[in-house]
């Protein structure tokens, strides 16, 4: 496959779309779990972007970044879910908008 039929812009648009859908999820979903998943969507959009640019530049640095992003994602998910469990044990809720003691 020496010629590329799919242009870079197509990958970028796809990445942008996935990123945006992730943003929507963060902004409108009540369930903390789904919000976490939406953040994963955003990170995956970034990964796609990295890999596409990597292909474009012919350097594998982008692949390395994806590797790091996966490590970060794993760490974040672990902590996020742990916080969620701690809250759920005390308040029996997994909805982010039920948590608003602190304000003003």
């Amino acid at each position, binding site marked *: 496959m020496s010629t590329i039929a799919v242009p870079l812009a197509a990958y970028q648009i796809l990445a942008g779309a996935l990123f945006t859908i992730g*943003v929507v999820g*963060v*902004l409108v979903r009540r369930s903390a779990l789904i919000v976490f998943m939406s953040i994963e969507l955003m990170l995956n959009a970034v990964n796609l972007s990295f890999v596409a640019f990597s292909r474009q530049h012919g350097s594998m640095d982008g692949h390395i970044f994806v590797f790091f992003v996966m490590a970060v994602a794993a760490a974040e998910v672990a902590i996020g879910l742990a916080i969620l469990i701690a809250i759920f044990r005390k308040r029996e809720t997994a909805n982010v*908008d039920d*948590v*608003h003691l*602190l*304000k003003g």
Partner: protein
Amino acid sequence: MSLQLLWLVPILPLLGALLNGLGAGRLPRKVVSAIGVGSVGAALVIALGCFATLLGMPGEERFFAQTLFSWIDSGDLSVAVRLGLDPLSAVMMLVVTGVGFLIHVYSTGYMNHEKDYGRYFSYLNLFTFCMLMLVLADNFLVMFFGWEGVGLCSYLLIGFWYTKPSAAEAGKKAFIVNRIGDWGFLIGIFLLFVTFGSLDFGRVFTEAPSILPLGGGMATAIALFLFVGATGKSAQIPLYTWLPDAMEGPTPVSALIHAATMVTAGVYMIARCHVLYALAPTALLVVAVVGAATAVYAATIGLVQKDIKRVLAYSTVSQLGYMFLAMGVSAFAAGIFHLMTHAFFKALLFLGAGSVIHALSGEQDMDRMGGLKKHLPRTHATMLIATLAIAGIFPFAGFFSKDEILWKAFSNGGPILWAAGVIGAFLTAFYMFRLYFMTFHGSERLTPEAKGHLHESPNSMTIPLMLLAVLSLIGGLIQVPLLQGGQRLDAFLEPVFADLARVGGAAAHGAAAAAGHGAAHAAHDPGQEIALMLVSLAIALAGIYVAHRFYVKDPQAPHRLAARARGWYDLLWNKYWVDEIYDARIVQPIVRLSNRLWKDVDAAVVDGAVNGIGRKIEQGAGWLRLAQTGYVQLYALILTVGLVVVFGYLALR
């Protein structure tokens, strides 16, 4: 005395403050007094020594600078803590240490019953230190340090009786209003730094005429920003509202800070920066107009106050207005002269008022005074001298200084500024004698408990009064007009203001030209000066006469006004007919105007604006609270909005 000892002048009060502050509550009263008074006394002795040395030097060489240490030294910005002594700062230094010393002595009597005696003296010494740093500073930053420091001490001392909520509020108000002025000062300092690359007085003032074009935007901007700072500290329109409230503090504090020293810092600063102002005629005009307006406006409000200290507070605002008027018409030496004499007689007035209040166990309402002349002979005599001095009666100190300002206002600024000054003089004479008569003459209207232990104040209080009375009496003689060699203060200050000549004579003509009175009376015209002098003296006497009529001869006149309709016969045979015309046509309208100014303008508009801004800010704070709902997704949304805007601005152009 060697000028090398100069650094001791500010440092001694600082040491006193530290000793009393650290030992607060543990040291016996005698030790506290010794430290507090002794440190300022020693500073005064050294100051006098330095002054004598300075006098012994030839006029052109009377400049001395002493570097204490290098404060900021970062390549582009380099500031040393440096003290500078020249005739101008020497005068200020003497006023601060001299009046300060007397007030410290007075305080040992006045505050004797106070629980927090040590804390009081610690603050007072700290204030003296900051004020001395302000006047002895050799660059703008050190001056600003003193500037903020006196503000802080003023706040601490106004709120000294913290248990009174009004005192705490007044302290806060003073500090915040002062900070509003300070932002102007700071911006001015930044602009100076950008323009000159240095903040040293020497460099800035030497280079100013060559760097800043006469009347240019930068010079005007700098001068006006500095003036904003001066209006805050020196209680000029519109930032004066804190000063009357500041009377919540102990009376000696009012005398020292809110009459004699700190409030004059703005005047001193403008005199110090006279070169910059000479380069900005528009700014000078603003200074003159604000000063004249404040002088009249505050005097008018002073007419109807019942609280003896509030009368003096508005009087201070008014007199500061005179000093700014002098600055505005480039009569810098005259302004400093008035600053000095005012320090004497206003400190005396406050301390005398304090003595009265002390004698009456805290009573401040003049309606509950009267007839105190025989009970408080020393206080009465000294107060009379001070009242005559502030009213501008020959040969008391105030006569000379005020007349010099009025004359300069006429010759450099034109008849309108002069007329404002004369109206102010009339009002001053009136309300000051109103105060005097209501307090010391007439029937005794004392409350029983005040009458109970009515007593003359102890020596520690009356001796400072007498010393200040002497100064108020003869202080004006160092600057006698029309007399060959009589202008000793002018001559002494001359080397400081000599550089005005380098601004191309613009200083003398600037304000006049800007005011549209091209024909400046630069030439000395003795006949005119004498005529003006007589006019203002007559005006002052008229004020006293009116006050005498209404508050001594016939205190019932206002009440009898209602009986005017009794017919011609009564009126013709009524020997007070004249008084009633005066009353109806002159006094009552003025009193009504005064009341209106006080209640409507002062309380509602100016105070309202200051408080209103505060309220608006608090309202804004309330709205911001509403946004902080606690819902995390709203936070994310706001973040997204920010992202959209930043992204749109940066990437989509």
